[in-house]
């Protein structure tokens, strides 16, 4: 890989699948293999289990000199604990954003609780990475983007895929990003539906599309190959792989 990469969607920690490349040594090896200059990690433990333990373990592993930055994960089921985590970590230079996963917490993205956390974190001026995998998730992010015009929201997985193979989730996400300038699209997902990168660039522009790997769950090559294969310009690829994230995360 000759193009430098910043990974806007990475995880630190284990998953409940047979994946052994999940420690920091394996992560650094993957970053080197794919020419990643930086990556923003959230803790898988904080997402699927305990935010306090997970955020703490992540913090202990962050190393900005090696390009290893973090998202602080919040869980709106635990409002006060989440606010405590924001206060503890978000002003640190190691942390470049907030991560929220609606599926594992069971809390909708556009919920009273999450809105309260956005208001709490807004003064730190750091983006939110939100897991989106349905049209409802996309609509929820749209609502938040409208309500919090000064906050930048990253749609993780660009709305995701669905069983029907129609692409309607990611098409909705592209529409949302084309309407709201504070919505960014992060494009990793397991299914590789050809044409989605081209459509995102055509309708939303390449300035707010971000490369994300979803490592340590997914292989960075998966999404790198998607962008490499896509029929967009070299300049667009450079923006998606590196330039947009460098600007957004102030790296």
């Amino acid at each position, binding site marked *: 890989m000759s193009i430098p990469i910043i990974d806007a969607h990475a995880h630190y920690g284990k998953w409940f*699948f047979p994946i052994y490349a999940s420690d920091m040594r394996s992560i650094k090896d993957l970053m080197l293999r794919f020419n990643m200059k930086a990556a923003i990690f959230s803790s898988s433990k904080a997402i699927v289990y305990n935010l306090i333990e997970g955020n703490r373990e992540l913090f202990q592993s962050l190393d900005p000199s090696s390009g290893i930055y973090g998202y602080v994960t919040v869980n709106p089921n635990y409002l006060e604990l989440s606010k405590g985590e924001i206060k503890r970590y978000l002003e640190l230079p190691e942390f470049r954003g907030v991560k929220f996963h609606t599926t594992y917490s069971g809390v909708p993205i556009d919920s009273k609780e999450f809105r309260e956390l956005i208001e709490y974190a807004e003064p730190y001026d750091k983006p939110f990475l939100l897991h989106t995998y349905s049209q409802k998730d996309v609509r929820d992010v749209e609502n938040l983007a409208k309500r919090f015009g000064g906050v930048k929201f990253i749609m993780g997985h660009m709305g995701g895929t669905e069983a029907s193979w129609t692409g309607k989730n990611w098409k909705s996400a592209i529409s949302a990003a084309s309407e709201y300038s504070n919505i960014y699209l992060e494009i990793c997902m397991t299914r590789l*539906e050809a044409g989605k990168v081209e459509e995102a660039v055509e309708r939303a522009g390449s300035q707010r599309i971000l490369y994300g790997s979803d490592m340590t769950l997914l292989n*960075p090559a998966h999404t790198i190959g998607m962008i490499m294969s896509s029929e967009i310009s070299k300049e667009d690829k450079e923006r998606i792989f590196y330039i947009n994230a460098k600007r957004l995360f102030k790296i």
Partner: protein
Amino acid sequence: MVVITALKIADVNTVFGFFPKRKIDCSLERLISLIEKYRISKVLTISLKSAFYDHVEGNEETLRACNGDSRLIPVASVDPRAYLGGLDEIEELRKRGFRAVRLFTEFQSYPLDYAPLLKLFKNLEGMDLPLLIYNTGYGLMTKIARETRGRGYPVIMLGCSYSALSEFIVLSRENPHLYIETSLLDTPDAFELLTRKVGSSRIIFGSGIPLNYFESSYLMVERAEISEHDKELILYYNLEDLLKGFP
């Protein structure tokens, strides 16, 4: 910016035709342009007409497309919803030159415990035609392995992602006829793990073009920390062995 595919490639998972669920160019011309762009030596391919309309017409279209182009190897489909259980229909597929049979479980909604499907599994015995099936969720592979065990034909599971890894590894030990296709093997160390646990001989390269992006599948193999010999087996020679040679 195209990845130069230095290794010889045979792709078990390609389609052509028309895709009704969203606008995308799936034409035969598009498939061939991708084959040429990425220097793919051989592809197993099948008309999407078999998936969405009529497998008999689809099979005819597949044969016509592959006729005269040695890079294209025809795959037949049988839609269990329209299958009346005839053995002669399956024998005819083999006689006409199809080299594998594919089920479109990802687009056709039928359960696995379904008489026409079970009859098809039985009727494929002795036909020497590998069976390609898309993995649609937990447990499907377990049932397929059980229903096809001891029948003498290989089964290649397509579309297996991180959620299918443990199921495949556990099943592969007692089901030597089971193989895994690579297009969605997307964990960071899937190839290293599978090579170690089940051996590279059970891994078959597939991309899903033109519905998928080719380089996603290719890069995952090319960048895996496995031997060059294993990569060659995965990308080409395992499929050649399964088919007992390419035309």
